[in-house]
């Protein structure tokens, strides 16, 4: 079994499929391949945490629709992924009538954080380039390159819309310098980020500013990694960094949620 074949069955992990539902050589490959092993363990964690959401309160359906729409708009999911997000991974939740209103406002953060991780993992696995791309060294990989080219060939996979390339952060040079021709433009916060900031603003103006700074930083990291992956789809390590950046954002949401509760 190859990495590509493993990636094709990974979405079933999110569905909570039992282990015996996978091809017989799935386990053998995962045990022998560190990259797939990491991916599988991450996805299992995401799936288990998403299932645990069943005991909490459900956000309004519009929240899921807005998440899906925003992910589609940012090019983070294709329609099948969005459908999965809207249906398969939607937790079954029971509202608690006596809950204070502010908790209602805050608890959407948990599924959003989980959805964000799920979306990130799905995008990364869904858009992963074929193995051959990784095995064929690019000029950047064979010789030290002090500066990332300012203009790179459009190696963005067909599934990644142009909008993503537009919204992605510009790459930094070796020393973190932003090439002059690609000055970064801070994009408008997404609807979910705005809602997140609205919720944390209940903690005070300075707290909101702190979270906004952290959120901007994490979003910048995501855009930076995404832009690099778009240009270098065969770079498995960069993909892992993209996944790490999504996890950082989920961590930020979770920390905020803990504080509000």
């Amino acid at each position, binding site marked *: 079994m190859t990495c590509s074949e493993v990636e094709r069955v990974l979405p079933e992990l999110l569905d909570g499929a039992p282990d015996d539902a996978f091809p017989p050589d799935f386990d053998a490959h995962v045990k022998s391949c560190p990259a797939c092993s990491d991916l599988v363990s991450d996805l299992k964690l995401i799936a288990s945490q998403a299932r645990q959401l069943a005991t909490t309160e459900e956000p309004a359906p519009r929240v899921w629709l807005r998440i899906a729409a925003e992910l589609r708009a940012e090019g983070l999911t294709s329609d099948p992924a969005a459908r999965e997000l809207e249906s398969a991974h939607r937790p079954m939740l029971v509202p608690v009538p006596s809950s204070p209103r502010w908790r209602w406002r805050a608890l959407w953060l948990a599924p959003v954080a989980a959805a964000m991780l799920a979306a990130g993992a799905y995008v990364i696995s869904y858009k992963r380039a074929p193995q051959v791309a*990784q095995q064929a*060294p690019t000029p*950047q*990989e*064979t*010789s*030290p*390159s002090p500066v*990332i080219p300012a203009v790179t060939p459009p190696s963005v996979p067909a599934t990644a819309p142009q909008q993503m390339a537009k919204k992605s952060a510009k*790459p*930094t*040079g*070796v020393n*973190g310098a932003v090439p002059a021709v690609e000055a970064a433009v801070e994009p408008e916060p997404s609807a979910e980020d705005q809602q997140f900031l609205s919720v944390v603003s209940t903690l005070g103006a300075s707290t909101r500013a*702190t979270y906004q700074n*952290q959120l901007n*930083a*994490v979003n910048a*990291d995501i855009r*930076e*990694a995404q832009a*690099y992956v778009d240009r270098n789809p065969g*770079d*498995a*390590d*960069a993909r*892992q*960094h993209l996944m*790490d*950046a999504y*996890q*950082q954002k989920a*961590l*930020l949401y979770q*920390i905020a949620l*803990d*504080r509000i509760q």
Partner: protein
Amino acid sequence: MASLRKASIRQAGIQQTSIHNTAAVTLVLATCLASAAFAESKKEYRFAVGPNAIVSVDTQYGAISVKSGSADQVIVTATLKSDDVEVDQQQSGSRIEIASHLLQGANEQTGRVDYVVLIPPDATLNLHSSIGPLSVEQLHGDLTLEGTDAVVNISNVENCHVHVRTMRGPITLASVRNGHVEIATISGDIHLKSVTGPLVLASSGRGKIFYDGDFGAGGDYKFTTHTGDIEALAPADVSAEFRVHSVLGRVHTDFPLLPHHSRYSMKAGSSFVGTAGKAESAVVLRSFSGRIRLKQR
């Protein structure tokens, strides 16, 4: 005329004295009220516990310091900065829960509660404080510490799981033996000194990671940052396989590593794979754009 003038002056003096007295009394009253409102108080709670106790302390504002105490008792000393905050405490068997309860109008100053906690050395410990600091030492039960801006310090712990999570707070672990360590922070720095165990994971988005130790115990050590630098200091006789890679940054080592096959493409100056000694531990240092240095002590 002169006597009338004297009387007028005397009356004015009396009025002035009266105003001064009133002001003084008001000031004293205000001071009393203020000191009552911000009165610092200290409370102590004692709980008898059996083996495998679980202790949780949660405070929005304030420091938590936990040390090893007697095997069958938990002692919590809480210093409340004002009457705007209370301490809720609950015991269910050997499970102890302590939480600061902010009252209406409490803020970072008036809602602060500092805790000093003595627990059995093998107790499981959960701590949360937004601003901290959080300090734990001389324990060998599982530890979970979470804070937003809290500075986290853990020292002299062994044979336990250590989970730490912060947003900006720096995290320092010292003398952790045989630990299963997982640290995550968004922008805090991570300092690890003499931290060993079967699993040591540390990730920071924008913070730096420093490691000073021998990468012992045949463990897996994985340090990851996005933009932060990573610096690892190890003795010359370290026994580990190193995989070091920075996507956009530079890497450097002064260890004479033996080249090792890797399925990942190596890029001179930004990645290397190699072994030292018998390669008993696996060390992975990864950064997206930070600089990584592996230095010999």
